[in-house]
């Protein structure tokens, strides 16, 4: 359980990190929090010849909350988001969901950018980014581009980020008025990756009817899946336990999870329905209080 030898670089600026990526191409891997990459290297599932440790790159750590957008530096660690009062106020889903990532020891090192690039479809951050319609800014030596979750996540552990690119920042919308968020997951043990995870946002109009809603599920496909067919039906209706129960029932036929040693297909489908119902209800309840 020891990693294979590699060459280690610790650039002091973003420009230097990017030019090292240009130089080494597919041979190089970025090292951020190391909480996914180092386990894979220890097990020799990954043997990158070159590691570029970006932990010394300035200007990539921090949380900025504007009027409509939250900008989180790619190197910001999970625990910083967890302990941010501003995040709690401006994006309840993120505040709640970040605590579900691994254990406190993992959140001490793991980064927002690393979780996005790692792109595990049941990981909390990709699901939240998709549910809330956030975006990601990636840079290379030549250019900077913005990607929506749909443009970013390709399949299991795979994104459209090129080997010469670095995630500079991750953007989430500030919660709108009369809006509630909720996120829930089912894990075998506290801190494990989820078997199924669901996240929802519900906005009510002045009369208390549903103005807009979003629902996203992780664990049924290679990327987080948004269920607009379900939430489109909710618009204009009064939120109630019965409404959410009824509208979530058809999810059984919308998702196609795979079975593994931990859970059967049927069980996962049941989880999708139950968790969807719960997060929509909880988000609507939160919206009433907002």
């Amino acid at each position, binding site marked *: *359980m*020891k*990693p*294979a*030898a*590699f*060459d*280690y*670089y*610790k650039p002091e600026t973003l420009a230097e990190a990017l030019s090292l990526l240009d130089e080494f191409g597919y041979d190089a891997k970025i*090292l951020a929090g*190391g*909480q996914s990459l*180092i*386990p894979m290297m*220890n*097990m020799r599932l990954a043997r990158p*010849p*070159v*590691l570029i*440790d970006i*932990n010394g790159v300035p200007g990539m750590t921090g949380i900025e909350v504007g009027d409509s957008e939250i900008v989180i530096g790619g190197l910001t660690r999970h*625990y910083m988001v967890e302990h941010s009062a501003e995040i709690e106020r401006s994006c309840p889903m993120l505040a709640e969901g970040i605590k579900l990532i*691994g*254990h*406190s*020891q*993992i959140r*001490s*090192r793991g980064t927002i950018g690393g979780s996005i690039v790692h792109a595990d479809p049941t990981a909390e951050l990709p699901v939240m980014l998709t549910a809330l319609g956030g975006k990601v800014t990636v840079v290379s030596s030549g250019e900077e581009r913005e990607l929506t979750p749909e443009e970013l996540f390709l399949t299991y552990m795979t994104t459209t980020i090129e080997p010469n690119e670095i995630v500079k920042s991750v953007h989430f919308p500030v919660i709108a008025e009369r809006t509630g968020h909720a996120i829930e997951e089912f894990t075998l*043990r*506290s*801190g494990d990756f989820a078997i199924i995870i669901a996240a929802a946002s519900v906005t009510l109009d002045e009369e208390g009817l549903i103005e807009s809603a979003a629902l996203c599920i992780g664990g049924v496909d290679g990327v987080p899946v948004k269920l607009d067919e379900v939430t489109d039906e909710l618009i204009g209706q009064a939120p109630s336990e019965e409404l959410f129960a009824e509208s979530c029932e058809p999810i059984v036929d919308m998702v196609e999870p795979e079975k593994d040693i931990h859970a059967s297909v049927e069980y996962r489908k049941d989880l999708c329905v139950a968790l969807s119902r719960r997060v929509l209800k909880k988000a609507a309840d939160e919206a009433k209080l907002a």
Partner: protein
Amino acid sequence: MTEKTAESSRLKTITLKVNHKEYTVDVEPRMLLSDVLRDELRLTGTHVGCEHGVCGACTIMMDGRPVRSCLVFGVQADQAEIVTVEGLESGDGELHPLQNGFWEKHGLQCGFCTPGMLMTACHLLEHNPDPSREEIREAISGNLCRCTGYQGIVDAVEYAAKEMRERAE
């Protein structure tokens, strides 16, 4: 190998503070911090169970936060402040209240998980001097114990929390 790679894979010199003592060592970049502590600094109190971040036995404090020392390369700990289980007792050899708690409440059997449990619990009590049993369980959820069934560990942390509160008064 190009000349540049040969250069960068050479031993790196790092300086780190462990339990308030400064060490300077030469390490290969691929050497994990857990191995730097155990094999280079001979601080074998930090245990290594799984080496992929799952068991928590290797938990140490790094710059004030609990981390898995098997998921950090030694070179990344250059200039870091580290506390390991050896740093818990006071200078005159008096045990930390947590260590007393584990002793009094049967918080260990084989002791393999204990250094990680202690470091994790230490961080909890620094931030939450009066945790509920549920909060204790949540805090140690990233540390596996094959022996005790955890009851004794939760009792031990509760015991230590009480002792520390009383001392503070």
